[in-house]
């Protein structure tokens, strides 16, 4: 099972410069340590921080029209500042890892992360296969 830990943005994140950004050293250390621990347990698949929304955009669909809306976006509670993707055996294991996630804003600061389970390929109905056969690789 895969779970994505989503870090919610705050106005401070949104105000970060695009380059030369200096994260809070204490937060940075805690995040690094935590992700090292995930990697050491073999559960870390992917993790990244996202640049502020001013360098992003949205595509809005209205009827047949598509319009591009440039960032920045303001409703920071709805925005994502980063994600960590883990693979675990159970919901409880994901919960236990999420519980240990460092406060992304800084110890004692109000902050929120959200955890979501990913759809897996076999959650979808398989499409009918064209039954062709060619022996290749003893491991099919």
């Amino acid at each position, binding site marked *: 099972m895969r779970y994505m830990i989503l870090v919610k943005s705050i106005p401070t994140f949104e105000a970060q410069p695009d380059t030369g950004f200096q994260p809070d050293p204490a937060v940075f250390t805690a995040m690094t340590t935590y992700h090292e621990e995930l990697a050491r347990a073999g*559960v870390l698949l992917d993790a990244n921080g996202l640049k502020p929304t001013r360098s992003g955009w949205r595509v809005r669909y209205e009827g047949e029209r598509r319009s591009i809306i440039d960032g920045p976006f303001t409703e920071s509670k709805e925005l994502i500042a980063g994600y960590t993707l883990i*693979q675990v055996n159970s919901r409880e294991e994901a919960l236990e890892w999420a519980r240990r996630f460092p406060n992304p804003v800084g110890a004692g600061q109000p902050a929120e992360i959200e955890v979501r389970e990913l759809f897996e390929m076999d959650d979808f109905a398989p499409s009918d296969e064209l039954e*062709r*056969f*060619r*022996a*290749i*690789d003893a491991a099919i």
Partner: protein
Amino acid sequence: MTVPKPTADAITRTIAAIWRIESAKVVAHVARITHDLGLAEDCSQDALVAALEHWPELGIPERPGAWLMTTAKRRALDHLRHRKLAAPRHDALGHETDLQYAIAAQEFSEMIDTRLDDDICDELLRLIFTACHPLLASESRSALTLRAIGGMSTAEIARAYLKPEATIAQRIVRAKRTLAEARVPFEVPRGEELQARLASVLEVLYLMFNEGYCASSGPHWTRPALCEEALRLGRVLVGLMPQQAEVQGLLALMELQASRLVARLDAQGQPILLAAQDRSRWDALLIRRGLDALARAEALPSPVGPYVLQAAIAACHARAASVDATDWPHIVALYDALLQIAPTPVVALNHSVAVGMAFGPAAGLEQVNALQNEPALAQYHLLPAVRGDLLTRLGRNDEARAEFERAAKLAGNAHERALMQKRAAQSSTRPASTVP
């Protein structure tokens, strides 16, 4: 928002999850002090039992890992004292001093955490190398590895291997006894011995992975818990030994093969061969991770080994948008290299398939015919299957039918048998023609 009081069942599941996260660290650290994996594993299990007893009452401690660690160490100390009283042994004294020190230091828990993290990589490696010791029978190695490093219960391991729980329990007990009787030191081998012992570790993980991947035993496909666990342990090992090309190679191979897991079966649970798989169902993230691991392996100076080569072959398939877009000549070259260092009959057979794809069916058939008298392949249904396929492409349908019928007789399970019979029937109705 009020949080409802968790049920006993929920707490048990939470403890199991914490155990999976913490157990390898606990076992490795205690074994470092007791110099005995079996004892360390028993004491760690005691700590887990204690947690299951106390936590539902007291709530889950703030730092559950430290709680388990301290409890396991105290059990180890009790054991050693007891053992010393029963049979004085000169080395138990040293262990006890180690333990006393470790437990005293535990009181400074913040400090110990930092120190633990420095040591833990080395300790985990010792644990992996000890559990996969060549002295142990192959199936004991896997069971002990899953138990001591994977944090899996005997019941979970038994389910994964479709074996009775008693069988698995016995394997683990026997493995611990063997290690204790042979006085196997709890350490990472050095120098020349390292490569030989590493081969044993990699073999344990790859056999575990394949057991889950092929699941040829039993009529039902089980969710591949073994694949996922082998993959996780492979990721752990790469973190511990990033400079070993074969470790990176094995991880790359497992990531790439796992990327095809769900595409390997149709709606009825029947296997779909690589050529016919819907490539849109391959897992892009796992492919990327596999290609990254392969790139890391190929960038290392060490000589290319069998896992790196197999990963490189898997990567050729992963990079190709279709069977026809596959770089078959490159795959042939990789099999040539693999035949130099790991000349097994199955590798030779796969090599001939690749030759047939790269240079036409006649060239492939010439290669396969050279394997006809190979005793190891005498009962292997894919040998006639491959011949049948190449003969079909050459328009020699009567001979092809005979081969598919032979393959059907040798097939290991009903699905494969049905597939071979179907191909035999198709050969009878197909007009003879030469395929360019």
